[in-house]
């Protein structure tokens, strides 16, 4: 297996995640796209760990998974708060801090 095939796969998944973050208006969908991005980063880290035969990349992937779990918890709490205050989770409607 080439190293590049994993790296390019993770680049493609990363770009799809960025597209999702930029185009979706639903708050939960944006969080799911962020999960996609973090996951592609994990593939990259583990691929480089296999390439260098060093285990620290895998340990770092574990840390990324833990941070992603924390991020989803806080993010979904914020979406719920948004829903309670505005009765929808349309991110295009949140502009009260717009200058």
């Amino acid at each position, binding site marked *: 297996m080439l190293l590049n095939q994993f790296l390019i796969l993770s*680049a493609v998944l990363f770009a799809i995640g*960025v597209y999702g973050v930029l185009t979706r208006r639903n708050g939960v969908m944006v969080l799911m796209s962020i999960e996609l991005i973090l996951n592609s980063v994990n593939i990259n880290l583990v691929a480089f760990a296999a390439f260098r035969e060093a285990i620290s990349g*895998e340990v770092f992937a574990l840390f990324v998974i833990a941070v992603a779990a924390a991020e989803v918890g806080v993010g979904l709490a914020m979406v719920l708060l948004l829903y309670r205050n505005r009765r929808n989770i349309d991110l295009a409607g949140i502009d009260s801090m717009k200058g």
Partner: protein
Amino acid sequence: MISLFFAQIQGLDPLEGSEVLVAQNVFFALIALVMVLAALKMVTTENIVHAALYLVIVLAGAAGMFILLGAEFIAVTQILVYIGAIIVLFLFGIMLTKGSFGAEEGEFRERSQMAVLVAVLIVTVTSGAFIDSFRNTELSREMPSTTAEIGDMIFSQFIIPFEAISVLLLAALIGSVVIARRDQ
């Protein structure tokens, strides 16, 4: 039926080195294709529950990739944490905010062409850099990494990040409870 299947497997010769490589590449191509298609469907589908299920496919595919790369512990953690916990959290989030977004209301922003441009740019620039740097570099791992090695690493070299992560998880736990609770 099942015993016949096992008899078939036991009758097979173990794979040679080059055959293993071919099998790995075939599985890589299959999983990568499924992952990319599911990710595209995830960011474009109107139905958000379907999007969560497509995300499950992508995450399971990533676990397959980790197994291909010889990182079994990461693959199991991926399935436990992502598919077991985070997807359930997402489904709860979708359930609790349901009805706030009609499908015909138009999920997508007008900036979709700009987003396509950004995504294509990211893919071309990063892939170009990867192809330029690691042209035909082979992955040469002989043995998969063991869980014991990872545990040793976490509790020796990475002990301070590990403690920081545990404090971060505690902070996120308390923070999300404070943000989401009803009364002040």
